[in-house]
């Protein structure tokens, strides 16, 4: 590795970043692929059936089969669509979730490298900024299809995403009042030193709001109104088929994965675990500890993903007005109140 | 508090009071208007009579009084009233004409409330403007009197071209007034006196005259600003049309009194405060006034409508005053002031009479009228006398004034004077007498069989009064000239700074000639 | 060529000019409004670059205000445009002729 140490900092930085990006991306894709499998398995279990079980042990190779199927299907473009946007929309859907993954600390250190692609000081603002871009894919899909149901789906989705973004953002404000920093790594560090330091226990209200908002942001049941089959015959992705449809599908799961990662980082202690000193960052020599941190993070994240899948098959769908009502008239005031209370408590503590 | 205070304040207060009278009580309105103007007239006569005996302040003004509160004293804007020889006659004339106009207001039948309020405001404004010793209020009150004029013509006026006439008169007079305002403001600023008080300004400028540049700039503003207000040729077109369309009282007040404001302003302000520029501009003014005297007289001859005719004749008469002012001599200026007073009575009289005729016949087309003297002995006689006065027949005040002016002008602008004599006397006589002949003599058309003469004293009173005044001052011009000369002397002296240096020896009348002016006055007597 | 403040200002000015051009030329209210946003963004860029190059944080605070005010303005504006569209079925400025002289 001596040749490496001789490089100037910039190429070093570039190489490490490339490696991290590659790693994160592949893990994310893997999770996306297998989240689908998990989803099918979980739903099968809940509905007391078997689920995919033909291809590979427990149907484990099913995602590969699905992928092949998607690629081989005819890529049909209906005549009435707006072509450019029709092509663009599926591509856009994936981008935000991948971009958000860049700022999430998925581990402490491996060697001297911090296990985060970009350790931004404005991390959370960046996340929200990127998350808010997620709406474009869906809106454009709805617009591009140039037919009724996708259009309604697009409209619904944009309204829904914008509405719940506010609740989500406000709920997180309380967290940052507590932490005093927007940098996600420091948020994680703040949670080290005991289960009670996890923000889920300090900010339960924020957690609940955030959790629900995530469901809405990822268009998951009970908030999957933009694509509700019974109402809109599939919503914004009606006109899509083959690989383009698959991209939407993947986008949804990628969003889920990233949202779960955010959840884990913000509320569940990130890569920390308050046993066996695992809540402190790994020293340069402790490669094993570093790997363990990554594993802990993945475990938490997968747990959240699992829970989201679980919820999908357990809950009925909301009505649209109920959804809006919940967002605007319950959560936003609640989140505001939460902020005020948090600020007041902090202020009193600082005073005393 | 002097009589002047009441003359100024009474009509305005009465106007405010009338605003609260229900409109059904039109008799009250008329009563109040006539009563108030009558009181004003008595007060004005009182002031005139007691003028000689009254005590003058340092700057030669009498009955000086201040209305408290009005204006902004920090800017030197104080409502200060007072009279000297020049404006005492004007105030008297104004008050008499106002009373006459109020009496003639019977012809107004609708919206009497508004009309009498406007009439009173106009009266108060005019008299206040003449009595004001503050440059600001001098202007302010004149404008105050102008607005009602416009409204009266617009609302109660007659004829098809009423709207056009209203706008024309409004625009013309406003331009004139505003141009003059710019000049007045510039004068105030250039003087550096920090006051709008006329005596103080005069005093200050006597000691430190304005720079030549400032005078050159300001004087034309005042000359043409005031000139437009007085219908100086070629800015006269508003006058005949406006008067032809105006309701009688408005025409009487405006042509008789308000129009004199510009002339008064020239005499009071432009001449004494900017002598240098005055010297330069006066010859031009003299030639311009020929436009009034000859051209407008000529046009008057061609008129078919009596009101247009007297409108033009009124414009023509202004030429005398301009000529008198242009001489910059004591005689000329004195004569000018006398003409102003005389013409005030005369104009009011003619417009009042024409208004009566119009009321009776509904037309003033001279071709349609004729032989009216038989049906209207009183009105007809008054009209004949008015025509004589207009032609400058001795015995009427106009003659006294015009002759004085000619005496003054003879030495200064000889060719102009010759032309003016010809124009004014010959042309004036022609059109006036022709009008009298067509309207009063000859066949009486059938349709005028039932016109009636002024039925009772109240209808005759205004005409009698005005005629009496004309004849009084015609027979005893000394009543006026005695008061005017000393004050005019001061002004002329200020306006002729070079006189003392004998630089204009051949043009300017030597001091003995001012004695001649007195002599002229006596000769008339 | 080293990138300095003036480069940023040039970009900002060009962007401003672009926006102004759009406002003057385009006839669709929505696009006009987008062009206005471009102009505001140009101002933001100028403020940020001045602030950064002169080590003075005031400008960035002002940008914060501008962004939030712009958001509010857009909300009202779009509501207005939608209301107009409902009534008039157009977003074309040349169709707004109810009050021609």
């Amino acid at each position, binding site marked *: 590795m001596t040749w490496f140490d001789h490089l100037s900092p*910039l190429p070093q930085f570039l190489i490490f970043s490339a490696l991290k990006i590659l790693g994160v991306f592949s893990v994310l894709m893997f999770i996306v692929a297998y989240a689908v499998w998990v989803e099918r398995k979980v739903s099968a279990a809940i509905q007391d059936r078997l689920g995919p079980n033909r291809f590979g042990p427990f149907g484990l190779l099913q995602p590969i089969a699905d992928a092949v199927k998607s690629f081989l299907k005819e890529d049909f473009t209906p005549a009435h669509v707006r072509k450019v946007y029709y092509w663009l929309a599926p591509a856009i859907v994936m981008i935000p979730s991948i971009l958000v993954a860049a700022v999430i600390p998925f581990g402490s250190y491996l060697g001297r490298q911090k296990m985060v692609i970009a350790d931004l*000081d*404005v991390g959370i*603002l*960046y996340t929200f*900024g990127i*998350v*808010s871009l997620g*709406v474009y894919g869906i*809106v*454009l899909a709805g*617009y591009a299809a140039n037919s009724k149901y996708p*259009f309604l789906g697009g*409209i619904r989705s*944009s*309204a829904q995403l*914008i509405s719940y973004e506010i609740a989500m953002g406000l709920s997180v404000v309380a967290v940052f009042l507590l932490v005093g920093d927007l940098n996600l790594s420091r948020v994680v560090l703040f949670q080290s030193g005991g289960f009670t330091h996890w923000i889920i226990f300090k900010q339960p209200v924020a957690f609940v709001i955030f959790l629900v908002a995530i469901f809405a942001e990822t268009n998951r049941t009970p908030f999957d109104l933009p694509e509700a089959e019974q109402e809109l015959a599939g919503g914004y992705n009606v006109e899509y088929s083959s690989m383009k449809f698959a991209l939407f599908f993947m986008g949804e799961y990628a969003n889920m994965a990233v949202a779960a990662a955010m959840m884990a980082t913000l509320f569940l202690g990130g890569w920390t675990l308050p046993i066996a000193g695992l809540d402190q960052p790994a020293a340069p020599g402790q490669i094993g500890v570093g790997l363990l941190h990554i594993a802990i993070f993945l475990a938490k994240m997968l747990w959240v993903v699992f829970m989201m899948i679980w919820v999908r098959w357990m809950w009925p769908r909301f009505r649209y007005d109920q959804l809006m009502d919940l967002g605007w008239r319950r959560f936003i005031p609640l989140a505001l109140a939460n902020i005020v209370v948090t600020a007041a408590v902090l202020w009193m503590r600082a005073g005393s | 508090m002097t009589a002047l205070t009441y003359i100024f304040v009474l009509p305005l207060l009465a106007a405010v009071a009338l605003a609260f009278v229900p409109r059904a009580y039109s008799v009250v309105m008329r009563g109040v208007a006539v009563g108030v103007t009558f009181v004003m007239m008595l007060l004005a006569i009182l002031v005139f009579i007691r003028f000689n005996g009254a005590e003058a302040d340092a700057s030669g003004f009498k009955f000086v009084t201040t209305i408290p509160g009005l204006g902004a004293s920090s800017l030197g804007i104080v409502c200060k009233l007072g009279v000297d020889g020049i404006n005492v006659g004007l105030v008297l004339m104004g008050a008499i004409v106002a009373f006459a106009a109020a009496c003639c207001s019977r012809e107004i039948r609708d919206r009497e409330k508004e009309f009498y309020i406007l009439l009173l405001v106009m009266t108060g404004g005019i008299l206040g403007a003449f009595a004001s010793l503050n440059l600001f209020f001098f202007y302010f009150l004149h404008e105050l009197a102008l607005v009602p004029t416009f409204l009266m013509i617009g609302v109660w006026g007659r004829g098809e071209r009423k709207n056009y006439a209203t706008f024309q008169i409004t625009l013309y007079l406003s331009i004139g007034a505003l141009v003059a305002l710019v000049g007045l403001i510039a004068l105030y600023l250039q003087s550096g006196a920090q006051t709008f008080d006329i005596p103080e300004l005069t005093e200050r400028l006597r000691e430190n005259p304005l720079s030549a540049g400032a005078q050159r700039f300001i004087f034309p503003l005042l000359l043409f600003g005031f000139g437009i207000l007085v219908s100086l040729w070629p800015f006269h077109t508003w006058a005949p049309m406006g008067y032809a369309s105006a309701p009688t009282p408005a025409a009487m007040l405006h042509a008789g009194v308000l129009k004199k404001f510009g002339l008064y302003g020239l005499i009071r302000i432009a001449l004494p405060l900017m002598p240098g520029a005055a010297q330069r501009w006066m010859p031009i003014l003299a030639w311009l006034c020929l436009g009034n005297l000859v051209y407008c007289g000529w046009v008057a001859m061609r008129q078919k409508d009596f009101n247009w005719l007297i409108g033009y004749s009124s414009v023509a008469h202004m030429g005398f005053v301009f000529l008198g002012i242009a001489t910059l001599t004591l005689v000329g200026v004195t004569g000018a002031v006398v003409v102003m007073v005389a013409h005030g009575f005369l104009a009011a009289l003619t417009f009042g009479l024409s208004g009566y005729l119009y009321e009776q016949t509904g037309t003033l087309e001279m071709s349609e009228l004729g032989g009216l003297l038989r049906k209207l002995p009183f009105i007809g006689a008054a009209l004949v006398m008015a025509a004589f006065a207009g032609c400058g027949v001795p015995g009427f005040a106009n003659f006294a004034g015009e002759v004085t002016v000619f005496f003054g002008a003879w030495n200064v602008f000889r060719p102009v004077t010759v032309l003016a004599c010809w124009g004014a006397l010959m042309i004036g006589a022609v059109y006036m007498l022709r009008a009298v002949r067509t309207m009063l003599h000859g066949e009486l058309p059938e349709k005028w069989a039932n016109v009636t003469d002024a039925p009772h004293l109240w209808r005759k009173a205004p005409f009698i009064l005005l005629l009496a005044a004309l004849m009084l001052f015609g027979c005893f011009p000394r009543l006026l000239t005695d008061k005017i000369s000393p004050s005019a002397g001061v002004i002329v002296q200020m306006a002729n700074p070079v006189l003392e240096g004998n630089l204009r020896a051949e043009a300017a009348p030597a001091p003995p000639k001012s004695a001649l002016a007195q002599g002229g006055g006596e000769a008339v007597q | 060529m*080293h*990138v*300095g*403040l003036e480069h940023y200002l*040039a*970009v900002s*000015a060009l962007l401003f*000019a*672009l*926006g*102004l*051009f759009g406002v003057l*030329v*385009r006839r*669709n209210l*929505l*696009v006009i409004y*987008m062009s206005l*946003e*471009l102009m505001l963004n140009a101002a933001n860029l100028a403020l*940020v670059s001045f*602030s*950064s*190059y*002169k*080590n003075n944080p005031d400008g*960035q*605070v002002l*940008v*914060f205000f501008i*962004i*939030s*005010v712009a*958001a509010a303005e857009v*909300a*009202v504006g779009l*509501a*207005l445009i*939608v*209301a107009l569209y409902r009534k008039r079925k157009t*977003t*074309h400025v*040349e169709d707004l002729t109810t009050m021609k002289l």
Partner: protein
Amino acid sequence: MEEEGGRGRGAGKFSGQNLKQRNMPPTDILFYVFAALTLLCGVLVVANPFSRNPVTSAMFLVLTVASMAGLFVLLRAFFLAAIQILVYAGAVIVLFLFVIMLLDLRAEERRKVKRFGLVGALLSVGAITAIFFKCLSSSALGADPSPTMEGGTIALGKLLFTRYLLPFEIVSVLLLVAMVGVVLLSKKDLK
């Protein structure tokens, strides 16, 4: 620009003192990339030769805003870069899209552009730009050679809540007003 040379050279604006320098620092390359993107997308917002579709304009506006955020990052204004994306891309332009879709502006395609207006606009805009560049080249900016201020959240936040508290509060009133206004203007049937 050339005439001003005598005075303007000292400030050395575009006179290119470093033209010879071959290896550009990466931030400079990034600047050119982002600047070009910003302007290109800006042009496509305003005058897209291929499409008059407002949706296209809106999408390019997103790109403009995003590349501007890139410029902000280069200027070390990280907070504002995030806010820029969050507010403009995330809210404002979504709102635009939302409205465009709601109005379904398909009929609104090509209308004749008035030659006269176009030329006039070009001239006036060109004049303003020319004046600006002339000013730029002739006056001293007095700036540091490279960005020196770190526009972090904490620094700005502190300013925002101390010195600029009053405008901050007024903005909150403004947002309230805007909210009331939007509700009033768009609610279906008001009671």
